[in-house]
């Protein structure tokens, strides 16, 4: 048994023994946890991953005449200004207001540029008051002339996180990166055995007031992060999926651009790569044993991100040794894996923190309150307005056609029923293709007579039990105007069109009084 005060005395005396979490795994394996608890004082951890729930409070100082900023833009990215007069909060995922730039430069990039010492354009406006008469301003700010630039991240450093795969037949773009169709790749995020909260899985040492390495500077844990979850299933003592989280604070004026980066997940949004390391005091052999966790002992669930729902199906359980090897085997097929967080940087951070402590530059702090280790689980948000499913929408009666039908007949049928889309089916009502009024015009122009020569064979479909909002997104994504509705046994049940969805929205708005 040791205390943090005793460890700090050894750090001051230059006698503390500090190892990284990767080194600790080996030490405990060789010497056992009891011996390791005697020999080792501090285990350093590290991670360098995309943490979307990050941002910064900035204080600009008062102008003359003064302004009470209500709308604030930093390099074109909006920051929240509903805080007194010259305070603002810039969030990492806020995109640029300039449509051509959008997610390519967001709040995360502003934060990186500030830390790099670059000048940032500030545009602000206000409604004007007797004490704050100025209504508009445009100027430049940088890290040196801001009064405060405080990084405050509501949810960082997830204790484990699912890996992502895509079982659909098209590429999808997610916060877990680009996912290739038909289980073409797997992406994972956690630093595994090096990750801070996996080395203190029951929060025996980490809490409000724990001093940490945050983006190259000293920072602090200021409590549980949002969505902190203590009720996730555990294996080998660690959660098998996203669980505990941290809220963090640090002074951007002290940060090092090597350990923080604005980034963009394509077609998803901007995000901030946060470099973070937490020292874990080895107070007893139980803590020593926990910090010895290896990549192999940490389970990671591979989930299907092709399902745009909150609960995603688990495709397979893997572990970080396997994931980091470059490929996993699913149903006898080797599938390549990609980390989204930088293991190289994570190691660098654990080593840098180790050297700070070894040099006597960094003492450990006693947290004033440990993180909650039980009774915390986030609730989902229920939508009061019921989600409408495809089979609940009122659509026109189903009319179909066969591949050998004559174009002229098909055209007549479309006009007669005033429809623009006709599913082409076989004798069992199974979908073969789709034909639109545009296809018919095209056929006439080219002198084609049979439907099968002009129909589209690769058809985007809707399933009966899918929410209409998902279909609206699909219509937009594929730039189409209607989709055939397909039942569980693959029969064509009807058509859902952009007009059906517009009608539904109008009815909703009428009901809500919009």
């Amino acid at each position, binding site marked *: 048994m040791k205390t943090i005060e005793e460890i700090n005395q050894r750090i001051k005396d230059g006698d503390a023994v500090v190892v990284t979490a990767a080194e600790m795994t080996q030490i405990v394996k060789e010497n056992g946890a009891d011996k390791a608890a005697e020999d080792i004082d501090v285990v350093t951890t590290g991670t360098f991953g995309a943490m979307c729930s990050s941002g910064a409070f900035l204080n600009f100082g008062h102008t003359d005449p003064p302004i009470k900023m209500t709308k604030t833009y930093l390099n074109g990215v909006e920051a929240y200004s509903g805080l007194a007069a010259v305070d603002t909060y810039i969030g990492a995922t806020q995109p640029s207001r300039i449509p051509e730039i959008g997610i390519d430069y967001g709040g995360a990039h502003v934060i990186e540029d500030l830390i790099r010492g670059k000048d940032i354009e500030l545009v602000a406006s206000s409604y004007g008051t007797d004490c704050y008469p100025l209504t508009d301003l445009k100027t430049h700010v940088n890290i040196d002339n801001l009064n405060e630039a405080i990084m405050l991240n509501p949810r960082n450093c997830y204790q484990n996180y699912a890996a992502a795969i895509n079982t659909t037949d098209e590429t999808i773009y997610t916060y877990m990166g680009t996912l290739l169709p038909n289980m073409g*790749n797997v992406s994972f995020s956690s630093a595994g055995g090096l990750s801070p909260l996996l080395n203190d899985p029951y929060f025996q040492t980490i809490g409000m007031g724990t001093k940490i390495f945050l983006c190259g500077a000293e920072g602090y844990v200021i409590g549980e992060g949002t969505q902190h979850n203590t009720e996730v299933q555990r294996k080998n003592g660690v959660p098998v999926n996203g669980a505990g989280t941290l809220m963090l604070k640090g002074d951007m004026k002290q940060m090092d651009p090597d350990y923080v*980066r604005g980034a963009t997940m394509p077609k998803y949004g901007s995000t901030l790569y946060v470099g973070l390391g937490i020292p874990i005091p080895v107070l007893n052999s139980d803590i020593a044993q926990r910090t010895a966790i290896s990549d192999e002992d940490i389970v990671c669930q591979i989930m299907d991100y092709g399902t745009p729902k909150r609960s995603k199906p688990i495709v397979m359980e893997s572990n970080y040794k396997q994931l980091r090897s470059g490929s996993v085997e699913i149903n006898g097929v080797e599938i390549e*894996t990609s980390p989204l967080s930088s293991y190289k*940087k994570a190691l660098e951070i654990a080593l840098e923190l180790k050297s700070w402590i070894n040099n006597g530059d960094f003492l450990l702090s006693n947290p004033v309150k440990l993180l909650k280790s039980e009774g915390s689980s986030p609730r989902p948000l229920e939508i009061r307005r019921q989600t409408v499913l495809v089979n609940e929408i009122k659509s026109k009666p189903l009319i179909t056609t066969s591949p050998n039908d004559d174009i002229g007949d098909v055209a007549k049928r479309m006009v007669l029923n005033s429809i623009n889309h006709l599913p082409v089916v076989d004798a069992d009502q199974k979908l073969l293709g789709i034909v639109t009024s545009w296809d018919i015009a095209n056929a006439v122009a080219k002198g084609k007579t049979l439907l099968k020569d002009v129909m589209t064979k690769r058809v985007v479909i809707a399933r009966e039990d899918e929410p209409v909002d998902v279909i609206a997104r699909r219509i937009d994504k594929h730039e189409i105007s209607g989709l055939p509705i397909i039942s569980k046994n693959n029969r064509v049940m009807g058509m859902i069109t952009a007009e059906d969805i517009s009608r539904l929205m109008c009815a909703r708005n009428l009901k809500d009084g919009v």
Partner: protein
Amino acid sequence: MKAWLKFSPKMVNQAVITDLIKNYDVSFNILRADINPKGGKMLIEISGSEAEKGIEYIEKAGIDLSPVNRVVKKDTDLCIDCGACVSLCPVKAISVEKDWTVDVNDKECVGCKLCTYSCPTKAIKVVE
């Protein structure tokens, strides 16, 4: 060597590539192809003892051949060595080294640009 072969509409029906493989000691790999009755292009890799003669034959037969001088480059200042690109590469031209550095191999690259597009820090560039 890697090269783009450009087929004019009248070349599409001729079995030049078949003849090339039959008559010369070459190994021939199609990396990308986009050919329809109006012509098109194909990215190939050609090697073997008679590769040079083979190339001469292709050019004589009327196919426009332009060697690829493409360079795929990783900007080490921008790259954070995360590895998001690794599993996206269709030809395994991107790998993670022993020290966890992400390495991009110019020789293997076929220029699909999936990595360029998906890199969170826009650190990979393909220049033709």
